[in-house]
């Protein structure tokens, strides 16, 4: 049992994934608030948009670490989400600032539904990855 770089990556990813889970939950709550009229879309978008890039960056960051640690299985596991993120960001509405959400179109039921669905799916993904990283961390620690 040794504390390898891979183990370090998993530990770090574990922590960061927990952070991502909070991000996603925040998204879900925010969109739900929009749907139920509690918040003004401009305010809501202003609070959500700054979180988008950090979320993507965190996710890409530990995926990159996995790549460096040669945890290719884990990288493959995360690759689809990275691709999705990149595509999503490239197709974002015309905006001068960072972020994805446009207050003028977010209230469209399709947009809102999609954002919410995305939130739930990502929540599931991060939860699964959380346990996967936990398992992998232990596995790496134990096996090495």
């Amino acid at each position, binding site marked *: 049992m040794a504390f390898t770089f891979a183990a370090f990556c998993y530990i770090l990813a574990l922590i960061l994934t927990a952070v991502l889970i909070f991000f996603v939950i925040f998204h879900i709550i925010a969109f739900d608030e929009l749907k139920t009229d509690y918040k003004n879309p401009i305010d809501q978008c202003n609070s959500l948009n700054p979180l988008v890039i950090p979320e993507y960056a965190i996710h890409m960051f530990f995926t990159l670490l996995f790549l460096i640690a040669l945890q290719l299985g884990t990288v493959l596991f995360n690759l689809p989400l990275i691709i999705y993120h990149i595509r999503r960001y490239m197709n974002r509405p*015309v905006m001068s600032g960072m972020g994805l959400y446009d207050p*003028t179109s977010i*209230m469209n039921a399709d947009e809102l539904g999609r954002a919410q669905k995305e939130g739930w799916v990502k929540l599931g993904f991060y939860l699964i990855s959380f346990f996967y990283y936990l398992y992998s961390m232990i596995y790496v620690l134990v096996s090495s």
Partner: protein
Amino acid sequence: MADGNQAYPTNQPHQEMQRQNEQPPLFLPQGVGQNKAPTPASNGPFQPSGAFHTGAHWRPLTALPQSSPNMNGFPAQHLQQSRMPITNPAPQPPPHVYQTPNLQQRPPGQVSYPPPSVQPAGSFMNGPGNTNIRPSATSNFPPSVGFAPPPRAGYGMAPPQSGNQAVGSPQPPPPSQSLGQPPSSLPYSVGVQGSAGDGQQSRPNELPMPFHGQGQYSHQVNPLQQRTPITTPTNSEPSSERSSRGPSPVSGSTIDALEGQFSPGHGVAKSPTSSQGPRMPPVATGTFSPPLQGHLPAQSMGQPVFLPPPPRPGFPLIPPQSALPPSQQQLPGQLGQRLPPPPTSGFSPMGQPSGPPGAQPRFSHPPLPSTARGFPPPPSSSTVPNAFPPPSVPPFAPPPSSGSVSPPMAGAGTGSLPPPLRGSMPGTQPPLPPLPGSQYSSMPPAGLPPSYQYGQPGPQQPGVGMNAVTQNLGAMGIQESQRVVNLLTERQLIPPEGIETAKPVLPNDLKKVNCNPDVFRCTLNALPQNSALLSKARLPLGILIHPFRDLSQLPVIQSSVIVRCRSCRTYINPFVVFVDQRRWKCNLCFRVNDLPDEFSFDPVTKTYGDPQRRPEVKSATIEFIAPSEYMLRPPQPAVYLYLLDVSFNAVETGYLSQFSQILLDELDKLPGDARTSIGFLCYDSSLYFFNLAENLSQPQMLCVPDLEDAFLPCPDNLLVNLHESKELIVDLLNQLPNLFQGNLETGSALGAALQAAHKLMSLTGGRITVMQTCLPTAGPGALQNRDAGNIAGKNTSIIGPATDFYKKLSLDCSAQQIAVDLFMLNGQYADIATLSCISKYSAGSVYYYPSFHTVKNPGLVDKFDTDLRRYLTRKIGFESVMRIRCTRGLSIHTFHGNFFVRSTDLLSLPNINPDAGFGMQMSIEDNLVDSSTVSFQAALLYTSSKGERRIRVHTLCVPVTNQISEVFAGADQQAIIALLAKMAVDKSLNSSITDARDAMMNASLDALVSFSQQIPASQRVGAFLAPYSLRLVPVFILAMLKHVAFNLSGNTKIDDRVFAMQQCKVLPVSYLLQYLHPHLYPLHRLSDEKPIKCGKEEIPSAPLLQLSSANIDRTGLFLMDAGEAMYLLVGSGIGDQMCQDVFGKPNFMSVPEGMMDLPELENPTSERIRNFVNYLMDSRPYGVTFLVIRDDSKHRQLFFQHMLEDRAENSMSYYEFLQFLQGKTKV
């Protein structure tokens, strides 16, 4: 009043209060302070008038009308108006006040209710007056407008009044009434108000309500109508109204407890009234008065107010004496169904009496009037068409019932179109026997109650010839709606009278009350019960609304209590169910609510009676004068800022002189009150501000070259009070054209100018008008020329914005209640796709004049002139929001139009104008099993240009069905196409135009395939079937595919395309359809057989032709009316006599190219043609370019490009398109 008194004992106190309030939070010293300052003064003038009417509270809104011409002098106007009632020869219905119990104090007779007889008159009066149809008092229409407000007003009112009055009576002197009431009311109101508070939009606010007495608002008449002689007269009436109103506000009426002041809402009624007086004198008078007396004194008074405005109009008129037609009596049963009906309401003055059917109908409230009006009451309730003929029924055999039903007339707007009536609603509840209820009994003439439902007692009015026609049509429509059309064999799809307007099939009593389809309509007039059925039918579900449309008749209510559902905040409406006399069940959320006592209080009898006589329950379109709970801040003044491009390009077009001249002409007609402010800001690559401070001897120009951080020099004097600085403003406008003559600066700093304008207006909100002639190239918001040639449907980014600068700015503006309207006068690419964002999210409007040039392009100059005059003077609402509510189980999916969506059902509209249309896609979330109908309610809260907070509520009721055949039969093809166009625009922006085209084709295909699957296979062979109600969908889809917005032609300029898309988003249904699918008329076949009634005139009509060259022949004159442009094609074989008569030229060859007007020749042919063309031009709220095209002209393409059913270079003919669609169905 007490409230008012308490809070603001007198007017002055009010003012003070205002100031205090204002200054701190809301208004800053800058612009605002100035603006406000005047307020007191303004009030001052009004006060007197206020005294008059105040008591009444009712302001008959109608009064306003006249004001339009006079706009300027408010005080004068008010006074006049206020007095008008009195002075009128006819007894005026002084302000009708609905008194609340509190009010009781006043002697019923005196104050509120003029003697019974009076009442009727009042009602009428009110009707007209209240309605306020004012041609927009403020707004003013172009001089051209037909109605002469004042005089006419008098006219309009008088007649009705006379009729009524004659009957009765004494006219209550308005003034006294008004005075008395106010005080009493106030205290009351306070308490009530609290309860009434509207949760959503506003919080209770400290500020007193509308302190501004001025606030009379008249409702503008439809632009169209206005112009048309007919309507105008009706409208004019408002004077009385205005007066009444004016006062009330002043005195603090706002707070009045009076429940209701209503103006008689029904346009119909009014018109009728006027006409009636003469025509049906006996009836009208008789009827009204009696009912009033007995029952609702209040009503009577208010009749106008109360009375059932819209719906039941018919009823009112009937004089007691005149026995009600049997049918009516029977009717009660029906009524009963709905509600125990209180026929009491008898007041429906409105309706029927109607004068000239033709005229009024157009604008009148939608449903109601129309129905009521023209038709003889159905013989009996039974006659009412209850059931539809089974689909199989032969198309034409009209059901007996149909005959009786003759609603079509009503179609007010449409006039010609008979709405297909359908018999009964399946869902209707069993009729309740009319309650003996106190009210009823009280009613004097038994007959009345029934009548109210049916309205017209029978006598048709003279001049009803048209009605008869329409009736027949209506009958046909019913049957037709069940007909199956084989598109491949049936070529004549468009009826010569125009396309029918589909209406929901409701039980008769509800049908009459339902919202005017021109204002509010649903794509499916029989709503599927669940989403599975909807997806099976594959039809788009949505609603289209034109909320601020100019109405000729609009009931206005000033009440301390606005009754709303406690859970969903729905306003009480004609479609609620009264569980008993004290409770009502919300038709949206089904909660059972208590009814405030005031709601059923009858001031005349001092008893509590039937709530159903309230105008809220009688009209699906109604306007409330909102109490202070609906204000977040004191109502803002009208503030107008003009941003003028003065770069080289702009000077070159010469628009400045035209703009200045028009603004000078219309300066006095700008909607507003004494607080109205105005400012100017010119820009090229610098900003030029104008200091217009009162004390200056001439305007002072301040140049700010720093664009990045534009500051406001002397911020206090850039927006100035229009009245105080008028001389300077006039001076400036006179100088403006020359000021920048020879300017060589080509840059345009639109972005910086808008930022400065935003800063300037952020304290008050208001309207920014931008005149832009080129691509903005300087400072923030500078754009690149993205026009890389044509877009062939692939590249979508170019039809979307290049930057979000304008969008963000627009949102900032929206937050500050600023709307930006854009006039694009560019000859070259100016990236309307990006610039229009500034208007799109601030609820502005966009106008586009490609290649505008005062000399080189004279055709557009007239259009610009007409548009700008209309724009400057049309009615306007500030700081508004619109909330759309719908029955539980439905939800709004997507919004279309210009606005910002603030929450799932709330649109933020810094300004609302009468030409803005909106669309909403709906989705069915739950099964709609709770009720046999669903309702949609749009509530528009706005501040009028007179500083009054108002709420306009439209309610639409649609039956629910679980039969797919009924879904198809109830489809409204026009609404469907309008909604599809909006959806296609979104699709184009999000995906691509190619995808949008496919989506449109698939939408039509899916629906037709789905329909034909309901038909036995044996009948389908070799046929391409469509229900009658959807027969035009392929035609319209083809029209859209060929329209500049969605075609794939490489020749389309991007700005043209983007503007066309923008128009698809915002045009109201009828204009949009004409924009997509022009109307073609053979002018050589004008006939008097079915004349169009326009006021007293009868205009010959021409049949509507389909857009196929097969309909064109060489010997004729054909008019292509494409909405914003008209082309007159002169056939090469035209007779010399015709040429001489119409053009003043001896033969075809001598007709000059490029004529843009028809010469005014003194011969019947010319007059008839000009009358018809002018009628068409006047029937729309925007200008038209007119061009005569000779058959051998090189411009012939302008005409023939609209022949949508022909094959064009890369587009299919209609027949090919059908085959193409059919081919797809088989795949």
